[in-house]
Structure formats: structure tokens, C-alpha cells
């Protein structure tokens, strides 16, 4: 019932801290005693003094970010990080995946494993391991991938959910595409599911929907944390309709990532707006669900700028008819969807729009492809909020871009020597490229 989180690298640590803040704030809202109990059990443990300590291990190769994050956590007064839950070094990984994976990872594996083991043993029941990292840098991606590998070997029967942040397309780091390609190809085989956030998308949400003028990293992180918390906070599921689900990650996975070739998950959360406008807005379930459905079909990630011309293909006459015949341009075919509704009058929400078999692959019936979780408790200040976790083709385009850019760089062997000097050969690069091409082709031919 408890989730052990692993915060890796700068991005992972910052997102993790925001996540716990959001969770704590949300749990401390009004009229939610059972909710708070469940949520606290899931994410925190109580010390003898009654203080909430996050079930989290912080890993970074530089001390700066971790110390900042720990300080921010204690500032809230409601929760802190464990004293001995941090692991940091002095050098950093230099945005080099090979440095993280081949040098830092093995060097510090025992220390990190001990920390994780301690957290896991503290849980009565492990719901799963939740890691947060970015794929562009060196520590989060390299060390993160290595640690995931070790954890997979040590806990083969546990669920591992990797939350990854894809960098800005315009590039923060020159070799970010190499790092992304290498991490994704390795993670795909190690983890059970990969939940993806893209910096570009979240940035747009901040600028257009939340009207933030000067977007800082912490704004972006807050949005990501909000979206993650809306998935991880307690909810009633199909398996446990009367009490809060005790196996959230397991249920998430068994509804979405059963097929070993399709593990990429994307997140959509509406509504999303600045807190000032929130007070003046009223939401209705039909409107929210209609928008969400169109966002799913048109691969839109935020409520603004949805392409309403894209529509689902008309009902196929026979089961066997291939979807390619009736596929419309830009239509986003889903493998499986999970809809999470939180807020007032959840039971009145009509979700039949999502059960349309035209949205899904023909070889899976709707009862397998679509599930709903709900919670009557309003989430994080939003009277009604809906989240869609989806295994579909929408990540194909950004993934293709990343691979294409990385391949262009690799074709001229740019910067490859930075990786080969740490032990990643060109053959490893080629293996990663083929693995990703495989993933891209699987999703394209869905």
C-alpha cells in the first residue's frame, strides 16, 4: 500500500519535492479524513514524534539541489525528508549518460540500494517503486537507468513505474538526444511502465492556461506534480469500489501496460488554470469529459488549441476490418485508457464517450481497454478534475523527433567520443537506436 519514490538528478529531486508538497496540501483539505489517512500511509511514515516523513530516497551527484530540496520540504512544516534518505556526491555527471551509467552508477550502487531497501522494509506492503528523472541530463538519466536496473534485479516481483521528463525540443543540453535515446531504450526493458512528461507541453500549459508571465522551473514542476498527484492520490477503482484502492500502481499497470511492447504512458489533466481564475470558474462534467475526449483523439495535451476537426473513424462494420482503412488523418489510436475523476458529483459523470470502440485497437475489447477510477474528494483546490492516463500514439511524434535528431548527430559521430571514453561503444548506440525504432514501429502499426 505504500509507494517508495526515488528522486534522481536535479529534475527528479525538484519534481519529487513539489509532488510531496501537493500531496500533503491536498490531503490536508477539508472533509477528507479517510482520504488523508490513506494518502499518508501511501506516501509518508510517521515518526515517534508524530511527524510525517516522506518515503523517498534522494539521489544526485551534486549536493546543491538536494540540500535545497530538503530545506524547502522542512519549510512547509507538515512533512520532511528522512535524515538519512539522501545520497549525494560532489562531482556531478556532466550531462553525460555514460558517465552516470558506467561510472557513478556502479560506484555508488550499494549505498543507494541500502537506502532503498530500508525504505522498502519500512513498508507493510510495497505498492511499487516510483522513480522520477529527466532523460536529458547525466545523473537522472544515467544513474537513474542504472539504479532501475539494479532495483529490477533485486525486486523482480515489484512494480516499477518510471516517470520521465523529456527535455525541451529546442534543446537545453547539446547531447540531450543521445541521453534520451540511451535511457529510453534501456528503461523500456527494465521498467513496467514509463510515464512521460514533456517540458514543451508543460511549458505551454503554464503560459497559456495559467497565464504565468515569467515561467520558472518551479512553475513547470508544480504543474507536473499536480498531474502526478492526481494519478497517485487515493481513489476508488473497479476492484475496490467501497474503500480506497490499496494497490494503485498495480491496478494502473494491469489496465494500461499489459502488453510488453507498449509501455509508454501519457498524462492529460484538466482543468488547469491559475489559482486566481479558479475561484471564478464553474465546471461541469459533460464539458470536461467532452474536452478530454477530443484531447485524446487529437493528441492535444492541453485544453487550448484542440483540433476539433479530428474525429474518430466511423464504426467499423466487422471486427476484422483493419483500422487503417478508416483511419482519419491525425487520429490518435489508443491501446488503453484510464480515466480518473475527482470531485463533486462524480457519480453523475457520463463516460460513455470513452467507451467507443473506434478509439481503441480492434484486438482489445472495451472492457479491457478502458477503466475508470473516481474519488468524491475535490483535488488540490479544483472542484472537479479529470485526468486521463493513456497508452496511445500521441508520444510517437516527439519520440520520433528525438530519435531523428539523435541519429543525425550520430551519423556524423558528433560527441560520441565523450561516451566511448566511459565505456559505451557505438554498438551500444546502435542497439539503442534499433530498440527505439522497434518501439516506434510497434506504435505506428497499432
Amino acid at each position, binding site marked *: 500500500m505504500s509507494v517508495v519514490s526515488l528522486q534522481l538528478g536535479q529534475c527528479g529531486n525538484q519534481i519529487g519535492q513539489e509532488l510531496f508538497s501537493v500531496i500533503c496540501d491536498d490531503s490536508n483539505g477539508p472533509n477528507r479524513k479517510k482520504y488523508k489517512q490513506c494518502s499518508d500511509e501511501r506516501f509518508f511514515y510517521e515518526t515517534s514524534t508524530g511527524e510525517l516523513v516522506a518515503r523517498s530516497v534522494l539521489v544526485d551527484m551534486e549536493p546543491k539541489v538536494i540540500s535545497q530540496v530538503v530545506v524547502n520540504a522542512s519549510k512547509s512544516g507538515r512533512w520532511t525528508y528522512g535524515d538519512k534518505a539522501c545520497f549525494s556526491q560532489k562531482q556531478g555527471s556532466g550531462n553525460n549518460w555514460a558517465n552516470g551509467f558506467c561510472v557513478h552508477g556502479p560506484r555508488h550502487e550499494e549505498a543507494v540500494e541500502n537506502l532503498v531497501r530500508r525504505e522498502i522494509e519500512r513498508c507493510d506492503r510495497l505498492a511499487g517503486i516510483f522513480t522520477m528523472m529527466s532523460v536529458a541530463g547525466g545523473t537522472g538519466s544515467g544513474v537513474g537507468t542504472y539504479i532501475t536496473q539494479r532495483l529490477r534485479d533485486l525486486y523482480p516481483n515489484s512494480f516499477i513505474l518510471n516517470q520521465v521528463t523529456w527535455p525541451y525540443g529546442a534543446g537545453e543540453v547539446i547531447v540531450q538526444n543521445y541521453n534520451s535515446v540511451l535511457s529510453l531504450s534501456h528503461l523500456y526493458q527494465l521498467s513496467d511502465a514509463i510515464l512521460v512528461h514533456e517540458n514543451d507541453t508543460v511549458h505551454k500549459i503554464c503560459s497559456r492556461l495559467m497565464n504565468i508571465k515569467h515561467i520558472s522551473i518551479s512553475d513547470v514542476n508544480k504543474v507536473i506534480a499536480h498531474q502526478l498527484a492526481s494519478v497517485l492520490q487515493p481513489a476508488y477503482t473497479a476492484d475496490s469500489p467501497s474503500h480506497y484502492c490499496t494497490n494503485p500502481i498495480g491496478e494502473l*499497470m494491469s489496465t494500461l501496460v499489459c502488453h510488453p511492447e507498449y509501455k509508454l504512458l501519457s498524462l492529460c489533466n484538466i482543468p488547469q488554470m491559475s489559482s486566481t481564475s479558479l475561484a471564478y470558474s464553474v465546471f461541469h462534467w459533460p464539458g470536461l469529459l467532452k474536452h478530454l475526449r477530443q484531447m485524446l483523439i487529437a493528441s492535444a495535451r492541453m485544453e487550448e488549441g484542440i483540433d476539433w476537426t479530428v474525429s474518430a473513424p466511423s464504426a467499423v462494420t466487422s471486427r476484422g476490418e483493419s483500422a487503417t482503412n478508416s483511419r482519419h488523418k491525425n487520429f490518435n489510436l489508443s491501446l488503453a485508457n484510464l480515466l480518473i475523476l475527482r470531485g463533486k458529483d462524480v457519480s453523475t459523470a457520463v463516460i460513455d464517450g470513452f467507451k467507443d470502440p473506434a478509439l481503441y485497437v480492434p*484486438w482489445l475489447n472495451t472492457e479491457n481497454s478502458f477503466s475508470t477510477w473516481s474519488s468524491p474528494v475535490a483535488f488540490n483546490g479544483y472542484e472537479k478534475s479529470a485526468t486521463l492516463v493513456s497508452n496511445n500514439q500521441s508520444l510517437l511524434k516527439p519520440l520520433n523527433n528525438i530519435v531523428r535528431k539523435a541519429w543525425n548527430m550520430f551519423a556524423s559521430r558528433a560527441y560520441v567520443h565523450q561516451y566511448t571514453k566511459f565505456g559505451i561503444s557505438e554498438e551500444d548506440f546502435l542497439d539503442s537506436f534499433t530498440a527505439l*525504432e522497434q518501439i516506434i514501429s510497434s506504435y505506428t*502499426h497499432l
Partner: protein
Amino acid sequence: MQREKSVKVKEVITSLCKLLSALSVESIPTAEAFRRAKFNRKDAALDMWSLLSRLLQRAFALDCACQDSKDQDFDMQLLFVRSALCYCGYGAPWVLGPQPPSHIKEVGSRDLLLAFGWVLSTGKLLDFLLTEKVYQLDTLSSGPTIAKSVIPGQLDIESHGPGVDTTVKKDQVLQALQWQYGKLRLHWKSLLSAQEEKSRFTHRVISNISTSADCQPHVTGSHHSNMTSTALDKELERIQALNGILEAYLDWKLHEHLFWCWMDSVIDSSLTDVSEVEPVDWPPGERAVMMRCPHGDETRRAVRRLDKMLLRLQTELRAIRTEQSTLTLTSQGGRQGASGLSESQRMEVEKKVSGYLEGLRLTNTSAITSGGFLPCLQDPQPTKPPHRFHTGEPGLAVTAGKLQASVALDELREREAVLQWQLERLRQNIREEMQRQASTMEGMVLIPPIKR
């Protein structure tokens, strides 16, 4: 020294036998039988024969409905073994030759030993058997991979997705099955963690009770523990069996190179005796096998894919070069002439490259079909072991697969050299063009980039 060596060889062969028996291969001869087989002893021939036929039956169990032929029907066995070996790409004269041995006794034990060595080395026979066994024992092992055939290349391409070839559509029923199986596995994992939690709580409760009241729990506890102990015992047996297999495998892997050194000696001794046999049959044997090989289609497809990848790499390189050249030239204003030049250059180069690739494809079909070369998409393991394995054993001249791996490496290096040369030529041309353009313009000074 000799005695030490022979003892070591015996240990190595014993570890192989142990591994094979752990993998439930039947009728495994003793290490002594192997040694006798090397010297073409008659009594060892029968042992080797039954081993070979059983192994091949296991390897091909998924591909053909092989009857479990008992020792009576030797002719059927002979036919099966010969066709199986031919399919594997083994080109010994007794397999392929125009006068096949009419009776099983005509095949020497050394030939059988060599055939066994061949089967062991090509493809991933041991890995295949290992995964099959592990899958049987370890219920939570990751997903049902589509039955990988032992023969390199076969089924690997199809089973792991369409890849570049878009006409191959996946079987939808298979997809649905994989989905359901994955779901089952995930449910199982959840149940397992629930069970662990339950046992942890039970332990806590019982330890609390036992601290307060001593005698009572024992009576009620024992009945319950009897029921659970059978399940636990079974679990324990399974894990012990798994352990045994993995230990045998690791042991074998440690000593594997010694085994192949010994096989070296077997081949040497067979070569010294081979002078009676007509040498005519040997050289075309390899090529003949490849041409008669029924799975040529798949391998040809793999070759095509490899070529496509290469071509893509090339064209992209060229595109970048021409882009750069047109960009720099537009900045200097001399666009027209340069684009015309690069156009003709491009045509010339394209023609050359496609011609070369065509030639390569025709001559190198055999080289590329050896197992270590295929770009196996999903599974990272297969290409590696044969590779490392091949390059470490240059001595085994007979087994075609090894020789061709090194030949394939040379071919690749040649190709690389050719492409590099073409690249250099292109670069040179562009550089000259730029110089020429710069010299014609007044007031313009060209500063060439720093050479890498």
C-alpha cells in the same frame, strides 16, 4: 601436462553433460564416450547418435511434429538428423553428399561429434533450451516471447515486429493473447505482494500471541502448517531446480572455451584422416548449403534491411553534405554552378553506391547469413554470444559459420573503407568548389575551417 589437460577436458565435458541433463535432454553419454568418439570408436557412435538425434528433436520440437522415434527405426532417424543438420547449415559430406550413408553405422562417431559441436555453436541452442526450462519453472518470468527457433534468423525477424517491412502485419489474436498474459502476470505480482503483507501481519500476530501464551498456538498452528508446507515444499523444489540449472550453465560458460579447444583437436585429427575423402566436395559445400538452405528468404530479407539501413545512413550523410555546401555557397552568392555540379556528382555517386551494394548483396549473401550478423531487433542477447564466440575461435575451419563471421567482418570493413573514401572524395570536391568560387570573387577572402 598431458594428464592435467585430459583431466581438465574431462571436467569440462562433464560440466556440459551436467548442463544438458539439467535441461532435460535425454540420453547423454559420459565424458568418456565423448573422448572415445574423438578417436572414431564404434561403441561411442551409438551414444553420440542418440544424443544428436535427441538434441535435434528438442531443437526442432516447435517447428515440426517430430515423432519420438525410438531406436528401431534407424532409417527415419537418419533422415531426420540429416535434414535437420542440413537446415542448420551443416555441410559435411555425410549430410549433404551425393551418396548418403545408407545405414547409421557408416557414420563415424567423430563426424557425429563434429555435427554435435556445430549444432551447439550455431544459433542459440543452449540459450533456447535454457529459456524453455526456466520458463517452465519460473512462473513469473517475463512474458511469453514467441517461440524462438534455434536456427539463427528464422522467426526472430517476424516475432519481434514488422520493423522496416511494413507489409508484415502482426497477428491480432497473438496481440490480444500477449495482453491477457501480461495482465495475468501483473495480477499475480499484486497477489504476491498481498500475500507477503498477509504473512508479515500473521507473523506479527503470532509472535505477539506467543509472547503472551506459550503452549496453545502450537496445536492449532501445526495443522495449518501441514497444508501450507506441501505448497512451500513444491516451491522450494522448483527454486532448487532453477538454481541447479543456472549453476550448471554458469559452470559451463566458465569452461566453454576449453571445450572448443578440445573440439579444435578433434577437427585436426579428422582433417589428418580426411585425405582419403575426395576434396572436391568440401569447398562448394558451404555455398551449396546456403543456396539449398530453405530459410534463405528470411536471411535475404535481413540483408535487405541491413542494406536499407546503410543506404539511409549514406543518403542522410550526403544530404547533410549537399545542404552544407549549398548553404555556404549561397552565402557567397555562387549558387547556380555549384548546385549543377553537385547534382551530377550526386548522380554519379548514387550510381556507384547502388552498383557496389548490388554487387555486395550478390556475393555476400553467404557471409551475412551466419548467425552473428543479423540485426535482431528486440532481444539484445542473440547477436552478442555468437560474435564474441566466433572471433575467439578462428581455428575451426570446417564449421562454416565461424569462418564466415570473420569474412563478414572483413567485408564490412571493406564497405566502410569504400564509403569513407567516397565521403572523402565528396568533401574534397566541395572544398575545391568553394575555393574556386572564392577565388573568382573580388574582395572576398575564404578562411577554410579548421581541419579535424
